[in-house]
């Protein structure tokens, strides 16, 4: 099976590889895995006060399609609001990267990672709100 040129491009020049401070209040971290293949993916987002994703980073240990899917996902969600990012569907990644059926789970992994990162940062914000209201 040959990878599409877009997968190869993201694999060879992955965008937004790296990490952020997982303890920072405005950073959400999602770590997800695919038990069928043992791939692991970490995707992190930094959000501003108006819930806009100002930066996104990822690190993926897995096949070319998993790396490309997460690279593309970080590219797409940067600059978007949390609500817009939640609307991202794995099928859009499949289409953009021309993933074959056996690699669809890689795009699912990227979607799951985005959702996990958003859930994490929202939970932190909720916790901060609770602490703030308890203090006042």
């Amino acid at each position, binding site marked *: 099976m040959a990878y599409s040129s877009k997968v190869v491009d993201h694999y060879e020049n992955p965008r937004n590889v790296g990490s952020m401070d997982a303890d920072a209040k405005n950073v959400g971290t999602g*770590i*997800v*895995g695919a038990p069928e*293949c043992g791939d*692991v993916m970490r995707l992190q987002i930094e959000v501003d006060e108006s819930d806009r994703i100002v930066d996104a980073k990822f690190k993926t*240990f897995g096949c070319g399609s998993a790396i490309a899917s997460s690279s593309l996902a970080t590219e797409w969600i940067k600059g978007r609001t949390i609500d817009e990012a939640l609307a991202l569907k794995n099928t859009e990644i499949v289409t953009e990267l021309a993933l074959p059926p056996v690699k669809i789970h890689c795009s699912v992994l990227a979607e799951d990672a985005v959702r996990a990162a958003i859930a994490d940062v929202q939970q932190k914000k909720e916790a901060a709100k609770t602490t703030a209201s308890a203090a006042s």
Partner: protein
Amino acid sequence: MSERAISLPVKCLSCHEELSTPIVCDGCHTLYPVPQSADFFDLLSIGRTFHLDEGLLARAYRSIARQIHPDRFGGDSIEAGNLSTRLSAQVNQAFATLRDPVKRAAYILEIAGGPSAAEVREVPGALLGEVMMLREEIEQAQAKGDDAAIARHRGAIAKRRDETLEEIAGRADGLWEASDEDKKGFRVLLNSIKYFDNLLTELAVNPLAANQDH
């Protein structure tokens, strides 16, 4: 344990010999398609348990594989030739599944009606975060050529894989009567093995080749 009600053919339809495996007669070598109700244990005529005798399994496989081998049916009808090819593929798959403890455990879970890795994707506790951290540490150790750190990781991960497999072995034969919750728990344990295996593969390869596509 193997209380499932299954009805396998017991006697050869041609020579009326007792059948020791449902797919071939020891006496007259008549072949039979795999019965719907037969699982891999039935195919190889071996007791339905995780704790099987691997020597016995290998001997059973070799004996059956020899009897159904397509070379033996070359001069026979096309149907017999095709059937022997199909049966051989099924018997090979049965052996490959049952000889490997992890595949065997996953197979027992499957025939006991438990969830697949696609259905239950969880792993135990904080494993994913740990795997991520280990991967990064290994990547750094490989970049620095720190063989001692690599050997240390390899030992520690192999130990955890062994411990997990021991727990799997301890629970596998209880799956027939297990609750859905316990079957799910078994799947969660099984899922972790793939992550350990990938780590061990990563640690086994030449670091210079580590970044090539796979």
